[in-house]
C-alpha cells in the first residue's frame, strides 16, 4: 500500500471511530434525559461489560464454537470470587493474571 493511501485509510478509520465516541456525549450531556432513558443507560455498563467478557470465556474464536475448557474460563472463577469478596481492582487484576498464568502452565 502506498504511503498516501495508508494515510487516507487511517484518517477515514479515525473519523468513523471518533464519531460514535463523540456524538452521543455532545448531544446528551447538556440535556435533561427522560427517566426511562436515564434508567436504561444506567443498566448499559453491566450489560456491555458482561457482553464483552462472557463470550471470550465460553467460546473459541475460529471457528466460533461453544467451549467449556478454556483456561480463560477456569481463571475467571478465582478472579470473580476474589472480586466479589474484596472489591479490590488491583488485587483482582493480580489474582486474575496469576491464576491464568498458573492454569496455562498446568494445561500446556
Amino acid at each position, binding site marked *: *500500500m502506498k504511503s498516501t493511501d495508508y494515510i487516507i485509510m487511517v484518517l477515514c478509520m479515525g*473519523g468513523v471511530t471518533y464519531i460514535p465516541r463523540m456524538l452521543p*456525549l455532545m448531544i446528551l*450531556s447538556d440535556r435533561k434525559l427522560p427517566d426511562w432513558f436515564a434508567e436504561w443507560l444506567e*443498566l448499559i455498563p453491566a450489560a*456491555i461489560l458482561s457482553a464483552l467478557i462472557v463470550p471470550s470465556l465460553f467460546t473459541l474464536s475460529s471457528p466460533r464454537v461453544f467451549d467449556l475448557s478454556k483456561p480463560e474460563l477456569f481463571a475467571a472463577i478465582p478472579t470473580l470470587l476474589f472480586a466479589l469478596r474484596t472489591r479490590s*481492582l488491583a488485587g483482582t487484576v493480580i489474582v*486474575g493474571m496469576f491464576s491464568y498464568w498458573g492454569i496455562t502452565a498446568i494445561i500446556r
Partner: protein
Amino acid sequence: MISAEKLRKGIEKGWPICLGYIPIGLSFGVLAQKGGLLPWQVAFMSIVVFAGGSQFIALQMMASGSSIPAVTATAFMVNLRHLLMSSALSLHLKGASKNFLVFFSYGITDESFAVNMGALGRGEIDRESALVLNQVANFTWVASTVAGVYIGEFIPSGAFGIDYALTGMFICLLVFQLRGIIFVITAAIAAACSVAAYLLIPGNTYVILSAVTAATAGLMLKRRFGWNREKR
C-alpha cells in the same frame, strides 16, 4: 491546568488499563512490522484511530488487499458499540464544556469507559481525572504499539499471565456494577445473549446487540416488578 492531585488520581485509576494495553500493543507492533508498516505509520494509526480491535482488523484486511472503503466500513461497525458507552458516560458529564467533550470523547475505549463510568458514578474521581486516565491509557497504547515494532520479537509471550490483565479488570469492574438484583439480572441476560449472538452472527455486532437487548429487558423487568432498590 490540571492539578497534581487530579493527575495522580487519574493515573492511579488507569494503571490496570495500561498494564493490559502493553502486551496487546506490543503484539500489534510485531504484526504491523511483519505487515510492512514503518514505526511512524504504526504511531500514526495508534494516535488517529486508538481502537485495538479495528487496528488489528485493518492489518489483516490490508494484508488481504481490501479497499479503503471496506476497511473504513469495518472499523465503523466494530466501534459502533462506543455509541452506547458515550451515551452512558453523558450521565456523569452533565454540563461539561463542548471543548472538554471534544477532547474527552477521543479517549473513550471499552477499558476507559468501564473504569470511568464506575469511578465517576461513585464520585471517586472528577472529570479532569477521568480525562487524565483516558490520556494515560492513550499514551501507553501508542508507546507500546511503537515499541512492539522494535522489541516485540524479543519479549516472551504470556509472562506472568499479563494477557489476562484486561479480562481480570473487566471482571472486577462488572462486579462493581452489580449494585442490585436488576443489575445482576441484566448482566446475566447480556451473558446469555452475547454468547448466542457471538456464535450465530458473524462479525462484532454481538456486543451492541446483546447489551441493548439486556438493558431493555432489564428496564422492562424493573418497571414491571419495581426492582429498583439499589445497594452499594
